[in-house]
């Protein structure tokens, strides 16, 4: 029988800035390993603000962009754009209206991570929408405080 964990606070207290991942609130999300894997996504809180570091790929395995501390470091050739959202977040989208990554800032300091995340082989690593966030391929970490990690999913 599958277990669904919802509404938990992982290394974050109610009211604190956090990310909403798989219906759980957390201060940290890591998929892939920067420096070791081509694809990675790290979402973290620093000084009460949300930050993203990422190397994103399309479903064809081609690199799309690199993001460092929410700044676009590099946008590779292709049809992708990075757009600002009306709620103050931002999104990586293409002309077919496909969202690669959508960061929505909700009330209460919550950042919702949505999108389809692919690795260099074009494999779907994770997928998120406003209902759920599924991790298909590890490694991944949800929640972190110092050296202590919350939920660890191995690759």
């Amino acid at each position: 029988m599958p277990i669904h964990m919802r509404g938990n606070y992982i290394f974050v207290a109610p009211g604190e800035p956090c990310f909403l991942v798989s219906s759980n609130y957390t201060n940290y999300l890591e998929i892939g390993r920067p420096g070791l894997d081509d694809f990675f996504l790290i979402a973290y809180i620093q000084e009460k603000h949300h930050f993203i570091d990422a190397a994103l790929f399309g479903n064809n395995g081609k690199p799309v962009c690199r993001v460092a501390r929410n700044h676009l470091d590099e946008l590779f050739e292709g049809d992708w754009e990075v757009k600002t959202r009306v709620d103050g977040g931002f999104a990586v989208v293409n002309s077919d209206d496909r969202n690669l990554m959508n960061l929505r800032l909700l009330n209460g300091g919550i950042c919702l991570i949505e999108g389809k995340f692919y690795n260099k082989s074009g494999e779907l690593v994770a997928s998120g929408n406003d209902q759920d966030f599924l991790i298909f391929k590890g490694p991944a970490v949800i929640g972190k405080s110092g050296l202590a990690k919350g939920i660890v999913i191995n690759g």
Partner: protein
Amino acid sequence: MPGYGRLMASTASQIKPSIVRIQAQAPGGNSIGTGFLVSKEGHVITCWHVVTFHSVDKDGLLQFEYSDRIVVTWNNRDYNAKVIHRQNTDTPYTSDFALLKIEASGTPFLQLGAYKDVEQGDEVCFMGYPRGYDEIFFGAGHVASLRSIGSHFNQMVRLDSIEIDASINRGNSGGPLVRISDGKVVGIVTLRHGDITPTLRRLRDYLKSSGKEEGILEAATLELVELAEKNTNVGLGTAISIEYAKNELHTIGVRIGV
């Protein structure tokens, strides 16, 4: 301090010739702001949000466009300004500055300083056209804090900024923040502190979208909320670091301060 008043007056007279008024045409009404000259060839720095307008698409994504017609008033004369550097619309809007040029030569200009030299407590001043007034207004205060703020639209992008204990108003955006000690520009005035609450914002959006705004009570409520949004001011203001504009001027080869 007998000389203090003269110091302020002297600083104002030095920077005033380089201050320009900016009007940008946009759907739904013109945008007003301030700018300042940075070269003798008519290069002007102002805020990005003064010369652009935005719309929201069905997915909640902002579409930005530069105004088709930007008028710079300098020395009692109107000039059509050209945007000489467009922020790449493929990237999130990151820093609130725009670079313009007017067809004028021999223009006075302000010297640009360095953000790293700014200290808490430094005396600073600014000049501009608050609330769309035709006259230049002078304001002064101190560096209250140095910190990072979310950019004007993209809250997830943090910008080095200078918080000042002075009243910034609509129309001041784009003006120079000048450090009194050396007369150099260390920031670009970008926003005032003071806004309506999320509840009032929801009320405003509801009244606008519900079609009920024609009723007297609803119209008056909407007007009050919009007035509050435009005018609420807690006596603090923000300028973003001048380094973003300096870096871009250098990248595109504009010789500043000469």
